[in-house]
């Protein structure tokens, strides 16, 4: 740089405008949940009504949700998913505020483990029920609209909130944000979507993130090569 450091400091301090401070991560988390969760639930319910009314004529989305809210197993699973969303969201929002303790990154471990265990247990039960011939991990494209509908709003609002801060540790923060958005979307999916597609939602989010990450890395490499 041609400018001296003292001159730079002088120019930065000149006519300094006031800034709006970044709110506490808990406040931003509340904003995220309040904005994204209702939209996710609404879109999830609407898409389910549209896509599955022909297949599951006897089961309407809201009836299914009401039923799942009364089952202990479903409630436990929903609690684990919601806790994963909240803790991962909090940790991700802490990650864009430099100087905050990185201990928050550990918060989602417990609820996420519980969620994964429940997914594993469901898979195992299904495997025992239908046998190895019928069991497959192939993506069901009929679930795709529901996955997009429930996951889009949490991901979008999270990106907007993250962009307000500074990505001090991009990989961890983006990973936590993806987990949070997936989990919040999974709540709606678990409530309104008849089959258990939460594992598929996690998979889609992971693939989408890795794809975007790959493009970003490629773009960054190209930029530095031709800069």
């Amino acid at each position, binding site marked *: 740089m041609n400018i001296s450091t003292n001159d730079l400091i002088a120019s930065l301090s000149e006519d300094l405008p006031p800034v709006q401070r970044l709110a506490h991560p808990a406040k931003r988390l509340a904003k995220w949940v309040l904005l994204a969760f209702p939209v996710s639930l609404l879109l999830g319910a609407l898409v389910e009504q549209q896509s599955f009314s022909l297949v599951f004529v006897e089961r309407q989305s809201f009836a299914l949700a009401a039923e799942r809210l009364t089952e202990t197993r479903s409630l436990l699973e929903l609690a684990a998913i919601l806790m994963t969303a909240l803790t991962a969201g909090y940790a991700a929002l802490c990650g864009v505020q*430099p100087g905050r303790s990185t201990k928050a990154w550990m918060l989602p471990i417990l609820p996420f483990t519980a969620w994964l265990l429940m997914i594993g247990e469901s898979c195992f039960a299904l495997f025992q029920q239908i046998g190895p011939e019928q069991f497959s991990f192939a993506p069901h494209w009929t679930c795709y609209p529901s996955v997009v509908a429930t996951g889009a709003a949490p991901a979008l609002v999270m990106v907007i909130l993250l962009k307000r801060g500074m990505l001090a540790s991009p990989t961890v923060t983006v990973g936590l944000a993806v987990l949070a958005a997936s989990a919040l979307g999974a709540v709606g999916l678990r409530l309104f979507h008849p089959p258990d597609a939460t594992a598929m939602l996690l998979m889609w989010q992971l693939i989408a993130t890795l794809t975007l990450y790959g493009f970003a890395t490629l773009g960054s490499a190209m930029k530095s090569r031709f800069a």
Partner: protein
Amino acid sequence: MVPDIGGKSAIGFVCRPSLFRWGTRLGYTVFLSGRPKAQFNKKVCIAKMINETERAQQDRQWSEWMFQAQEGDGAAYQNLLMAVLPLVRAIVSKRIADPDKTEDIVQEVLMSVHKNRHTYDPSLPFRPWLSTITQRRTIDALRKIYRQGERETLVDEYPETFLADETNMSPEDDLVFALGDDLNRALDTLPAGQRTAVELLKLREMSLKEASEASGMSVAALKVAMHRALKSLRAEMVPKAEL
């Protein structure tokens, strides 16, 4: 008496922030060598307390300045940036040895601090916030340096950039070029015969015979004039060239 380690006292050595923790981890006894443990610990503890108090005061002052800067106080912001410069330089130079690059990265850190000043929470200490930004920018700069290094080849001589002579001059050529004016001035001081000899023989690069025909002077006269001219020019130019 406090043991000496490379010209620094043990207490001074141990109390440096980065090494203090290392010293405490070893129980302050690492530099003792037969001294009573209690006495040494007392000195270290006092030094530690002074160090931490100063550090805490400094941190509070920086937090206060940053709080004011977020409100739009330019003077507080300037004080803050000037005060944190040594810390930023220290963090950057820990990873990057080249002083020119260090200063560039320090400036990038300052711009990053400016851009992200809204992310500072005044209820938290200022130092970790600044350290995180500084380390982040330093790592980014290191990545850039490594990436550039992969595609760069060191050469002894710079290759030609353009065909024009002016673009391919070495510093020595520049010196000669700079002395061109002095040469003209020195030529003006020569008598007419000597100046003609230099112009024809050296500047126009004529042979003695051609110069003799062009000037009407004999070959011998041209030789003498040229010899005297060079002697005068050397006396005029050499002291300036040596400067």
